[in-house]
């Protein structure tokens, strides 16, 4: 941005400032901390200047919004043209209870839906499976068949509202439920929109709701890419997620690096299958965390867009849309405290602001009571209102990438990109993503970071307000969500009736054909849909894959 002569002058001026102003004052009045580090343990200078971003070339490294390499945003009008989608992750108990919650959220101004499934559903088990014991509806809604999906979206216009579904191992089947529900309602597949998370690599790395070994899992994912690009063109067939990597304890840099490494891996697999990159890449989407370190988070989103655009170009993408990193953000669940939970409102507001300043396409704000239980109606409404205040009152939507050009933010963006690229090299040296997963590389990196962080909390080096400083011994006084105690019984009964009433032989035939497809190389999606339409349950359909593919067991590293 500056010529060499000017930069030399600035560097000289910095030295002068340091020796005559900064250091003498620091010696007289010591700074409040010995070292200032962000959440990735990067040492921060007191102030940044043009001399810190000497190589920064505006046209090449930044460009304007909607221009390569999309540092400043994926659209040229950003929030001036369209506000981010306010999409609260929600689900508990039965489909009926969750349907009510969705309607409540939509009534209060939410603009997109996001389904949280319970553990049995995440692992492809029906509610009445022995391993589902105790888990029904606990951390999400139980969806065991098309019947449940019909109830979940009853009276919700699925041709107008988009839906994101956090489902991974059994993603093609649960997506099948959603598609089949639209089919039955007479809505063309080309008119439904949404996202399935479908990101199995980060399951092995962090979230741990994997079912099958990596290779067949990757095959199923490519099946969805292929099927989606032809049949369900408005659907994001994957949401490549850093969120859970971060929640498991990674740093922001690791979240950035591992998520993008996952993303490029999916592209490699799809291309190896023979798919054309520009046919599927426009439907790849991303999902990041919004944690406490405000500027680091903003730099992370910006770096992610640039790395992705450059990487995809290198991999041969030609369409502009293939280069765009569109992402959802959720504020950091792990940053919420059970102590003085109202303080979480403040944390969430600041994290959400970072996501907006970082250019997110959709946003979930956590509710203040989530370190205690699933959110109550009031808590989730306040979380939604937080987004509405940012949109309507703060004025931040008027200017695109308002922190672009900040010496500090540009320096940090560059640095995070460099560190991510270094991780890419490390992964390559380990033989690529799958070998690195099997060697426990990511799991170990994350465990190290989370342990180091915890130690710093213990020693008081890092502060969590209300936990290791400003503590109070007051009882928590916020009302928590009460679930329908009859829910599990209702769900058992529904499953029993479903198995009795459906056309058994028709389903048997469909399951047999699915097995054959799974054993071969055909795309499994059409066969899954046949089973779903015949009211096969999640457990039955997933069971076919379990038998054909086997199950994955992870090495227990701590």
């Amino acid at each position, binding site marked *: 941005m500056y010529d060499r002569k000017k930069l030399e002058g600035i560097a000289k001026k910095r030295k002068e400032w340091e020796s005559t102003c900064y250091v003498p004052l620091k010696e007289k009045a010591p700074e409040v901390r010995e070292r200032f580090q962000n959440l990735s343990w990067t040492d921060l200078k007191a102030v940044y200047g043009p001399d810190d971003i000497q190589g920064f070339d505006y046209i090449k490294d930044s460009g304007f919004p909607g221009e390569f390499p999309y540092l400043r945003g994926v659209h040229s009008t950003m929030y001036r043209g369209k506000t981010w989608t306010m999409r609260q992750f929600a689900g508990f108990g039965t489909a009926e209870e969750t349907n009510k919650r969705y309607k409540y959220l939509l009534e209060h101004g939410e603009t997109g839906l996001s389904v949280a499934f319970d*553990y*049995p559903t*995440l*692992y492809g*088990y029906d509610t009445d499976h022995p*391993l*589902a*014991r*105790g*888990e029904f509806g*606990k*951390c999400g809604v139980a969806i065991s068949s098309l019947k449940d999906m019909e109830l979940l979206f009853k009276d919700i216009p699925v041709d107008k509202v988009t839906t994101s579904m956090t489902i991974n191992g059994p993603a093609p089947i649960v997506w099948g439920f959603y598609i089949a529900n639209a089919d039955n309602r007479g809505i063309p597949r080309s008119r439904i929109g949404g996202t399935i998370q479908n990101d199995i690599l980060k399951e092995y790395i962090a*979230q*741990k*709701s994997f079912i099958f070994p990596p290779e067949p899992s990757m095959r199923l994912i490519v099946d969805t890419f292929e099927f989606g690009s032809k049949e369900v063109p408005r659907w994001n067939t994957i949401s490549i997620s850093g969120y859970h990597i971060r*929640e*498991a*304890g990674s740093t922001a840099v690791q979240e950035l690096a591992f998520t993008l490494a996952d993303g490029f891996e999916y592209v490699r697999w799809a291309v190896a299958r023979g798919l054309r990159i520009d046919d599927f890449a426009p439907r790849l989407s991303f999902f990041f965390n919004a944690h406490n370190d405000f500027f680091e988070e903003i730099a992370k989103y910006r770096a992610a867009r640039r790395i992705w655009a450059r990487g995809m170009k290198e991999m041969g993408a030609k369409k502009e849309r293939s280069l765009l990193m569109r992402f959802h953000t959720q504020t950091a669940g*792990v940053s919420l*405290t*059970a*102590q003085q939970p109202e303080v979480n409102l403040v944390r969430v507001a600041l994290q959400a602001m970072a996501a907006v300043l970082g250019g997110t396409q959709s946003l979930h704000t956590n509710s203040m009571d989530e*370190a*205690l*239980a*699933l959110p109550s109606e009031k808590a989730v409404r306040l979380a939604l209102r937080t987004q509405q205040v940012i949109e309507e009152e703060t004025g931040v939507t008027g200017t695109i990438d308002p922190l672009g050009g900040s010496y500090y933010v540009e320096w940090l963006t560059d640095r995070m990109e460099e560190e991510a690229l270094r991780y890419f090299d490390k992964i390559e040296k380990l033989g690529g993503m799958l070998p690195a997963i099997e060697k426990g590389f990511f799991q170990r990196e994350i*465990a190290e970071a*989370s*342990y180091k962080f*915890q130690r710093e*909390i*213990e020693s008081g080096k890092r502060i*969590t307000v209300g*936990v*290791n400083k400003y503590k109070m011994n007051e009882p*928590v006084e916020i009302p*928590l969500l009460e679930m329908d105690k009859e829910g599990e019984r209702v769900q058992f009964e529904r499953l029993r009736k479903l198995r009795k009433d459906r056309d058994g032989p028709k389903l048997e035939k469909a399951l047999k054909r699915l097995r054959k497809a799974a054993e071969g190389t055909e795309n499994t999606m059409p066969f899954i849909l046949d089973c779903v339409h015949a009211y096969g349950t999640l457990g039955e359909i997933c069971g076919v894959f379990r038998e054909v593919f086997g199950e994955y*067991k*992870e*090495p*227990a*590293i*701590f």
Partner: protein
Amino acid sequence: MVKKIRVLIAKPGLDGHDRGAKVVARALRDAGMEVIYTGLHQTADMVVQTAIQEDVDVVGLSLLSGAHMTLFIDVLELIKDRKMDDVLVIGGGIVPEGDVLKLKEAGMKGVFGPGTSIEEMVDFIKENVRK
């Protein structure tokens, strides 16, 4: 030489949230205990079998899915059935206050929620473990 305290850290059920379990496992090891970690997706029976085989003094259960009232209780009952009453059973996770009381009645000696310090946990184990 004093015998090292042997601890089993276990993840019963389908819950995949293992950050806390891993941090605790490591911290207890650093505090001088011998720690065995089961890994994910254990049934109550598997947890108790491992506890017997490894002859542990402490069983630490971790669960953040909300299924603690079923899965913790399953383990506690099995431990009672096997007359392993001198094994200290503790738990951690997202456990509402009302449930803490019930778990304690069922034999769980300590329940540690979010924000608990490692020091607090180590002290608790040292004070309450069979001597």
